[in-house]
């Protein structure tokens, strides 16, 4: 094949994938500790957020510093639709995603016209602005207090197995896993296609991409919209699972955490954000005894990572593997 540089053949990959899926599906049967199951569920939510940011950052090359804010919009939208309008999770979630995507589209249009330095700054400002709206709009969003008592998803009636309720963490684990797979599928389909190559071209050199006839603005906006939709998805799931929301969830601290997950895992790869979003929450739990210093450690890790391992864990692994492969010729 003309694709040299693939580490493993397709068949091998498929087998490994199947094994992984079986392992992941059986974890709740093995690990019964609520505490760990909860971490896994949260990891799943962070994985979706990290993948969403990676789409616009790692592939289209645009640093969106408001990803956490869109997460928050999705969370509040879904939460409010459930609480104030009595909609079921299964209706509120898609609507919440849609709303987030619409806001993403509207805000993407002006911000993506900028080049280079301005886009991150514009999104940072955007994130701050929307945060303040959420934090101050007491009537609607509960302001600083936030929302409480958000319901878990309604039980689904399965033909043979009966009603599948989501009161248990275990079943939420499966729910989140489903959405994680969905997200991975969408992103994989996009980036492995010719459209994905366009995005990478835009990241590489936007002028050159234009000279090749690529409508960079349109691709950036669509990519951004999908990215915010997925962030909203993560937020919506978060809202229902946690049952309560605070304005902090839309704060740029959330944006930073998502960014951390992506960068430390490995930006611009499919597995990178997944690894980062699993590794960091676990690290976060282990470091909890540090209290406030935990975030300081995060900051230092971030700086060191970007300095010495700009492609994160995945990058590091690839360097190790790559060198070995080069020797094999």
């Amino acid at each position, binding site marked *: 094949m003309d694709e040299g540089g693939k580490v493993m053949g397709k068949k091998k990959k498929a087998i490994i994938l199947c094994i992984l899926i079986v392992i992941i599906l059986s974890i709740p049967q093995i690990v019964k500790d609520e505490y760990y199951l909860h971490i896994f569920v949260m990891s799943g939510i962070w994985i979706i957020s990290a993948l969403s940011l990676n789409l616009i*950052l790692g592939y289209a*090359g645009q*640093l969106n*510093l408001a990803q956490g804010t869109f997460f928050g919009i999705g969370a509040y939208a879904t939460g409010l639709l459930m609480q104030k309008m009595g909609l079921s999770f299964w209706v509120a979630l898609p609507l919440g995603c849609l709303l987030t995507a619409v806001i993403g589209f509207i*805000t993407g*249009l*002006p*911000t993506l*016209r*900028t*080049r*280079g*330095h*301005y886009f*991150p*700054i*514009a999104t*940072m*400002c*955007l994130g*701050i*602005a*929307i945060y*303040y*709206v959420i934090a*101050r*709009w007491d009537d609607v969003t509960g302001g600083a207090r936030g929302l409480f008592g958000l319901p878990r998803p309604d039980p689904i009636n399965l033909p043979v197995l009966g009603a599948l309720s989501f009161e248990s963490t275990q079943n939420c684990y499966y729910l989140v896993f489903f959405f994680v797979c969905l997200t991975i599928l969408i992103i994989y389909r996009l980036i492995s296609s010719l459209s994905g190559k366009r995005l990478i071209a835009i990241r590489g050199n936007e002028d050159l991409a234009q000279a090749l006839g690529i409508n960079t603005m349109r691709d950036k906006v669509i990519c951004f919209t999908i990215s915010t939709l997925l962030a909203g998805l993560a937020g919506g799931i978060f809202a229902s699972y946690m049952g309560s929301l605070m304005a902090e969830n839309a704060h740029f601290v959330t944006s*930073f955490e998502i*960014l951390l997950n992506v*960068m430390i895992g490995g930006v611009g790869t499919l597995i990178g954000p997944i690894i980062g979003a699993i590794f960091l929450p676990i690290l976060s739990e282990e470091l909890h005894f540090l*209290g*406030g*210093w*935990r*975030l*300081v450690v*995060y*900051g*230092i890790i*971030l*700086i060191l990572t*970007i*300095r010495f391992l*700009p492609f994160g864990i995945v990058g590091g692994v690839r360097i190790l593997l790559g060198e070995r492969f080069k020797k094999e010729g």
Partner: protein
Amino acid sequence: MLGSVYAMVALGLTLIYGILNVPNFAHGTLYMIGAYFAYFAIVSFGASYWVALFVSMALLFVAGILLERIVFRPFYDKPLINSFIVAVGLILVLENTALSLWGPEFRQFSGPSEKVIKIMGVMITMQRVIVILTAAVMIWLVHLFIKKTRLGAAIEATSQNPDGALLMGINISHMRGITFGIGTALAAVAAVLVAPILLIYPAMGHTVIGMAFVIIIVGGMGSFIGAVLGGYIIGLLETIVTSYVTNFFTEAIIFGLLVILLAVKPTGLFGKSHG
């Protein structure tokens, strides 16, 4: 009054951007540190207000130089995103160190004078007057420094044309460090000036940094005038909107205006088109 503060912070930020070509996201956090340094100078060491101001300014000047060398310098030839992320990391480190060391409670110290005076029929606290006057003086000093001294000229040269400056024998690394130091020091002064009026807390840099970026984008990144004028304008705008329209959506409105402006003129009003 707010405009003065914004103008100083924005000026510091734009100076740094002009010479480094990197927007220093951590500027707001350094501003916050400046306020805390002054606080401890006054509370723990019993310094007077003006001494504290000077100490804070000096400390942050040094901090700026160190940060440029240690944190930002390795990234000049790397993709831009990396510098952004480093700045984000810096925010995490500084802000949370402050939070852990000093707690989230609001603190305050008082200015040199508690007097209230009457100007043109309006009651105004002395502190506000001090803010306005000191800020104006500082801005004027920086302006003189850049335009009238050789060091200032060297800095201006480096920011406009690094290669040319290098050929002229200017040590651009030093220039970068000094400029960073000046920018940070300005932020410190701004923070100390405003601290007696607004409170001190670890997250106080947030709104300021947001506004500062709005200002330098509107005024043009790297433009001295743009930053100063923009600062006063935005300060005025914020005060008007908050007083007369609504308190709730002030930031949202201003940032929203920014986003619209960017859509129309991506390089700001006075800007050099960097990047």
